[in-house]
């Protein structure tokens, strides 16, 4: 029986959450590259001894539940050889990482010479070496073509930077200055967390703090069990299909068999298709993280994202399958796809057990990047498309949000200003408006995707590459709701016919004056369309979310 009182535990819980947020705030304010300070593709967390997740700041959902696996990998490798002042680093998907661009930094926190906490920061770097810029290499057939693998390593030994090791990392990436700036921000963030935790331990004493953590995790477990108990017992199955592997193989299936028994949940992904030769494979840690993300969405938003709330969940998967690839397979796209399809399969399976919680599918990610030379100043440029966000899925809470993004980011990715983009890149945005009729119909409709007409105003040939999914399968409708419209991206070179862009292709030539016509996917609908409120239908038509023609067909 714990001696810590509930008030002290509550105070310590607030402090722990605030510390992880302060680590995130420091990161946000000090990181250098746009993907971190604008898109916030990073997360900060506090893990306990052995890696159990204690508190995590609210950033990118795809990182939830992933960090404990990274801590475990460090502990497994270094054992007792962990000391105050050490900073550890890793990114290898086969050693607790998710994909290579995500670099994780850790600091151990000691009390009375005993390791009690880890402060952790995972951040997506804009480049990590490898065959192509930014690691999204649709042509990769093995992980070594995707970038530099960093197994658990000690970057600082008892406070001393290992300069040679840093040098090794820095020469292997394309933008060493950005890389070092972002890595410095990560280390600053975990060090800040370390200082704050030391103060907390000083104030309350290590024993009380550790007991409070047990209390907090037990409380989260009981809260999660309270939720699961309300779900009907049974065995449920769900399947989600990826478009293809980019190598001609279509409809790659992720299958979830979910067993609810009382307050216990077993999620069995073993029937998933075998791994493939392209970057849609997932590492074990990334699959675990996708499962945690699905449950975070299905539980109450207030349920703490910590080890306790995941205790009722047992995950089974098969090594060699798409969601647990054997070492060496490429995996870069997996934090989007197949992670989103893992979520989709689980949510679909559980929808009959908890219809009042399950939400329809959010649009899939389909990224393009254009690389060329800006005729205004002769300088090279690389533009990553964050515009034309896909639609969000509908839910029992109401219609999906228009243009609010994918399941792995849930409205957390900000697209930049069109005015700034036109000012900085030789691009002209002729049109950037909602795509009518793209949201899946239902009692609640999916959010619209976005139409983007983009003119490339270079004088020389550019390159583009694609990485994504969802041009064949739309975001899934749920409980009678219709699927959202899939992505449709076209490229129209001057004087030529428009070409449909595939979702996974490297090195596409873009002639000057080319126009991209991007029609991004809509979100899935929830519930039978015949149950939709007629006033809502009038509203959809009046505001052009649904065109007159499409409205007639209902």
């Amino acid at each position, binding site marked *: 029986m714990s001696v810590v009182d*509930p*008030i002290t535990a*509550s*105070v310590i819980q*607030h*402090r722990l959450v*605030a510390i992880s947020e*302060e680590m995130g*705030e420091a990161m946000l*304010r*000090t990181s*250098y590259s*746009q993907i971190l*300070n*604008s898109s916030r593709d990073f997360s900060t967390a506090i893990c306990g001894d052995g890696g159990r997740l204690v508190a995590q700041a*609210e*950033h990118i959902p795809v990182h939830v539940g992933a960090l404990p696996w990274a801590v475990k990998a460090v502990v497994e490798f270094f054992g007792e050889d962990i000391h105050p002042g050490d900073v550890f680093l890793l990114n290898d998907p086969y050693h607790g990482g998710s994909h290579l661009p995500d670099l994780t930094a850790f600091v151990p926190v000691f009390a009375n010479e005993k390791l009690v906490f880890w402060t952790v920061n995972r951040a997506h770097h804009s480049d990590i070496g490898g065959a192509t810029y930014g690691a999204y290499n649709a042509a990769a057939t093995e992980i070594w073509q995707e970038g530099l693998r960093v197994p658990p390593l000690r970057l600082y030994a008892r406070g001393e930077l290992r300069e040679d090791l840093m040098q090794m990392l820095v020469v292997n990436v394309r933008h060493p200055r*950005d890389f070092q700036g972002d890595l410095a921000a990560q280390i600053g963030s975990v060090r800040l967390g370390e200082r704050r935790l030391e103060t907390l331990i000083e104030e309350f004493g290590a024993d009380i703090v550790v007991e409070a953590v047990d*209390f907090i995790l037990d*409380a989260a477990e*009981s*809260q999660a069990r309270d939720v699961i108990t309300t779900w009907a017992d049974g065995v449920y199955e769900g399947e989600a299909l990826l478009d293809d592997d980019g190598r001609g193989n279509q409809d790659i299936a992720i299958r979830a068999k979910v067993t609810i028994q009382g307050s216990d949940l077993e999620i069995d992904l073993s029937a998933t298709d075998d791994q493939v030769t392209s970057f849609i494979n997932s590492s074990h840690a990334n699959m675990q993280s996708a499962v945690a993300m699905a449950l975070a969405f299905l539980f109450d*938003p207030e*349920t703490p*994202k910590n080890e306790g709330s995941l205790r009722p969940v047992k995950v089974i998967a098969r090594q060699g399958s798409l969601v647990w690839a054997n070492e060496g397979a490429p995996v870069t796209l997996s934090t989007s796809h197949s992670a989103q399809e893992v979520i989709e399969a689980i949510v679909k399976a559980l929808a009959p057990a908890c219809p009042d*919680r399950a*939400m329809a599918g*959010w649009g899939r990610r389909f990224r393009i990047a254009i690389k060329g030379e800006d005729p205004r100043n002769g300088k090279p440029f690389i533009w990553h498309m*964050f515009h034309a*966000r896909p639609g*969000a899925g509908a*839910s*029992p*809470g109401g*219609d999906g*949000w*228009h*243009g*609010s993004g994918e399941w792995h980011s*849930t409205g*957390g*990715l*900000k*697209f*930049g*200003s*069109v*005015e*700034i983009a*036109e*000012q900085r890149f030789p691009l*002209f945005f002729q049109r*950037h*408006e*909602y795509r009518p009729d793209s949201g899946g119909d239902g009692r609640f409709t999916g959010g619209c995707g*976005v139409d983007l007409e983009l003119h490339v105003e270079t004088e020389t040939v550019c390159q583009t590459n694609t990485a994504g999914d969802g041009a064949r399968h739309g975001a899934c409708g749920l409980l009678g709701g219709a699927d959202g419209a899939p992505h449709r991206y076209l490229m129209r070179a001057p004087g030529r016919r428009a070409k449909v862009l595939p979702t996974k292709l490297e090195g596409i030539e873009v002639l000057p004056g080319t126009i991209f016509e991007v029609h991004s996917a809509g979100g899935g609908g929830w519930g039978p369309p015949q149950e939709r409120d007629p006033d809502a239908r009038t509203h959809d038509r*009046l*505001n*052009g*979310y649904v065109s007159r023609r499409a409205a007639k067909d209902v």
Partner: protein
Amino acid sequence: MYRIGIDVGGTFTDLVAIDDNGTVTLGKVPSTPEDQSIGVMHGLAQVAASLELELGPFLANTDRIVHGTTVATNALLERKGAKVGLLTTEGHRDVLEMREGLKPERYNLRLARPEALVPRHLCLGVRERIRADGTIAQPLDEASLNKAIRVLRREKVTSVAICYLHAYRDGRHEQATRDILAKALPDVHVCLSSEVLPQIKEYERVSTTVVNAYVAPILSRYLSRLEQALAASGYDGPVLIMLSHGGIAPIAEAIRMAAGTVLSGPAGGVSGARHAAGLAGIDDLIPFDMGGTSSDISLIVDGQAALANDRRIANERIALPSLDIVTLGAGGGSIARAVRGGLLQVGPESAGAVPGPACYGNGGVEATVTDASVVLGYLDPENFLGGRTQLDGVAAAVALDRLGDDLGIDGVAAAEGVHRVVNTQMAEGVRLATVRRGVDPRRFALLAFGGAAGLHATDLARQLNLNRVVVPRIASVLSAWGMLATELRLEVTRTHIGDTSDLDIAAINQLYREMEAEGRNRLSNWFDGDIHTARSADMRYGEQIFEIDVPLDEVNFEAPDLLEQIKAAFERRHETLYAYSLKDQDPVLINARIATIGALPALPEEPLMAAGADTPPLGQRRIYLGQWLEAPVYDFDRLSAGQQITGPALVVSETTNVLLREGDRATTTPHGWLDIQISA
């Protein structure tokens, strides 16, 4: 002559009149939300009566009225603004609703989608296009504009926002649109993005302009009514409106930039805190205003209030410079519950005014922070709000006992827990807010005002390692008072993008000179005193997305090394905020800014109190501070200057209750304020 500050809040309208000797007269009357000017006139009559004057002679003897109004704020919060139509560049009509792709609450996928301030069928594209370099890609097409105007007429919109792409570079298409609109729909209020916020980033500009169009008509109606009522009662001086950025401006300017009045009320509080800091000789201060449903904090560094331009109010983005006020979801009415398998959570849900805390006896049953204060003896149920209201101590005890049952502890322990948890939450909120501003909170003093602040301030300070808390005697009307101590202020912004090393020195100088001329010109229309200006710039490194505000006051614009100086100023600011800078990188200048400031005569100082014999306590009260003990209770309004009180003790007045914990030492200042040293 008198100067009058008027702060209209949700419940009360506070008034402060100051005469030439600095003597302060207070007024407080219920607000009249249906027409705030009625409450204002009642309040003026009350103050006049206190001075034994008729309203007419009182107003005839007044040379300045400064007014903080929540008309625009309420219109936005309650969605009661104008019916707005939005004209945009064709192909870009969804900028407002897209919100840059962002949706709040990452893990709440069942969150309902909000309605945009302008429904999509009133967002109309007009064929026209200016390019990023300012050239015209498509001249304004009148046929397409006329088509849009037909929709606006049919839908009977009362206000129109015109926001074209790249209009910050060239406002001519917007101006031409306004001219045509003025002929077609002469009664409609029109706002141009190139006038409201002429700076790059379309979402911020569109959203700000739309908010402006949404609140301007209702603000305009209210202020004309007030002006007429004042004139009819004999007032012929200026009425100056408190703006979100902490400055004041006359009515016409406030209406023109109506979106800049949404923080009018809280801005008065910050101005009051800043003035108080000046009187107390404190440079670095955290104003802490704890009310019923929430608490506002802000920062005063080196005597200056921090500004931000990334505000959202009622979920709408307003990118005008505004005081950096952070609202925390914890107030006296915040509800305490056992959640998550036995942890205590306080807020963000609040019992509000109805039903209110359990002790109000209006049907509230859940335990709130105020109920905890009653159970712990910090509030006297017999003597709340100067005895005008009685609290139900039994109901508070029942609510806390129930909470205790859920937590497995007794009611008093639960009540103490509520205080510990809510204070922890607020302390962490303050810490995060200071981290965001790049400052260490420990060197700050806490200035407590607002109904509930005094009971929490000392513990909050201790948790933050602050050693000083100041409670002004007029804490409850600090906003109205602060409004009288502000300056006229007008902001001018221009987008001028360029890498620092590529900027043209002559062009930069000309840009700032033009902006200064514009600011002085506009300000001199309604002010004939001394005007000074302050230059600053929004800058960032190329790949970053957030600009930082870089003061350029210390830069010599005539010097040949101007660009190096600007770069160095940016680096200093970046280091302060983020602890590093990158010397080998060229920052980008995005927006040039000018603040045009017209200083008003200083507020006469209030006569100081003479030191006297210590005033004895009113009595003793049993309070709980880890154990039950008898603590003396002092009357805040009757303390002598220099009087020292050592905690545990309570200092109470009609609207303010201050808790001194064990070892805290309060000294009464010559202004009658409490200056508290916090025990370590």
